[in-house]
């Protein structure tokens, strides 16, 4: 059977997408992302206040 080299990149792409999807849906990651954004927001507000 002929397998196009693109077959490999399709699967690698799918694995990367699955990992990203899992990470974005994980509550821990979501929580961390949220806290990063909150920290950034509070720093910005503090700078504006000064």
């Amino acid at each position, binding site marked *: 059977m002929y397998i*196009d080299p693109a077959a490999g990149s399709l699967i690698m792409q799918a694995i990367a997408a699955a990992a990203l999807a899992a990470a974005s849906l994980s509550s821990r990651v979501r929580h961390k992302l949220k806290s990063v954004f909150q920290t950034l927001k509070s720093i910005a507000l503090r700078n504006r206040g000064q």
Partner: protein
Amino acid sequence: MSRKRRLKYIYPVAFAVVPVVTLAADHIGQFYMSDLLALVGVSAATTLVAWVVLCVLPWKGDRFAVGALIAFFGVFLVFYLFPLGEVVGRALPGVRQRWIVPVVAVASLIAVWRVVRRPAVLEKATVFLAVMSLILLVQASVRLGVGIARGARVIERSELARDLAQPLPMSESGPAVLEPQRDVFFILLDMYASENVLRKVFQYDNRPFLDSLVALGFTVPEVRSNYTRTILSIASILNLEHVDRIADETGPRSQDRSLGRYITENNRTVSFLKSRGYDFHFYPPLWGGLTQKNRFADFQFRPRRNLLETVLAKSSLHRRLWGATALGQFVVVTEDKYDVDSVLRSFARLRETPDEDDPLFVFAHFFVPHNPYILDENCEPAGPRGPDEGESSGLEQRRARYIAQLECVNRQVLELLPALLARSPEPIILLQSDHGTRTIREYDPAVHERVPYAQAEERHGALGAYYLPGNGDEIVPDSLTTVNLLRYVFSHYFGADLPPVSDSLFYSDGDYEYLFFPVEPAPVSQ
């Protein structure tokens, strides 16, 4: 349920589109946008219909979620299972490949069945797959967009393309002979091997055919193609120049064919002859992806007759998708009858080329006797496909089918020539192959320093037979390489100042068309 909430259930459509977009992203310059859009459209529409049908079935629980998961499972089986089997097979070389696919298929079926029975898990799986499909689609689309933009930039910055856009130099003394403006028929027979290769590698005597050509007035020198891949060979022939610089400009391991296709379409032969009042008639092959369209053509033969054939007669991208997925394993091959029809119709139309006021330059690219072997020696459909070219087994069967297809080509050519030779004034007819065959496959870059001479000799040995009226045959030497063919012709008939360039040979193989390998020197006895 709101429309917005229902949107997440159509993720199977995204999963069905991604393989097409990914394949296109990995083969920039090797497909036409119309072919890509047609494939995306068919893939998306088929999945959407299947999804709608599955969603109206009376499943227990959330029928949209169940319908979507089952539609996704179908998409997975069709597009992802075989590539996954290939990747797993490569990662685990000890495991028998033929077991991987059924084991993964059964495991996936069990997983789907278990998820469908648990509503909470089904909801989570739906969200996960919807997010994953979105990421996949964005990834693949960005890769495609970047690839297309990069290909366009390579063309824009190409010194090779700029050099080839210069007009051909003309001799101050004018043409060697004062000639009427003759029609020029350039008939490219893809992968038609030289007499020497046919005798040595195939133990086939093609002399009777060549003798018939000689009897008609043809000259048949010993010809070698400078390149072993179609895109490079045709680009160099039609531009009358070496094009190996393409490797530096595009990258030797690049899969991007944009520049090669650009200089093939915008070639110097067509611009030179058109500037001399010629009309350009173009006969593309049904597929191939490289010479299928030419915007400069005054007449372009349509290898596909109607919209239905456009869908069923596969484009190059279509064939790649078929070859890489389960479609090629279980769906009956449909393209052969369209290939047969387009080859025979092209020859028939060429025979009936009308006389016109302006002289004609006719370029016909026949994708025969190149595989797939679709015609037998009597030009009837060859029947079910034999072993594929990429396989190591079935060599004898492949050789027999190649020879049968070659005999059909000989028959078609001999039927065509009397019609062309009856034209007035007598036309210039160039029967040319772009490269030889590829049955000897001893070279392994990991093991050998150089390509064995016999392998390179087979691949470079190409047919060349020319009808050059008005003593034109005197200007062609006994031995030549393809890059110089039109240099001789244009110098003699049109007064171009084109001394022959180097007969250097560039051997490339496999997936990297621009990666040239060193070749062993010829044995002393040669």
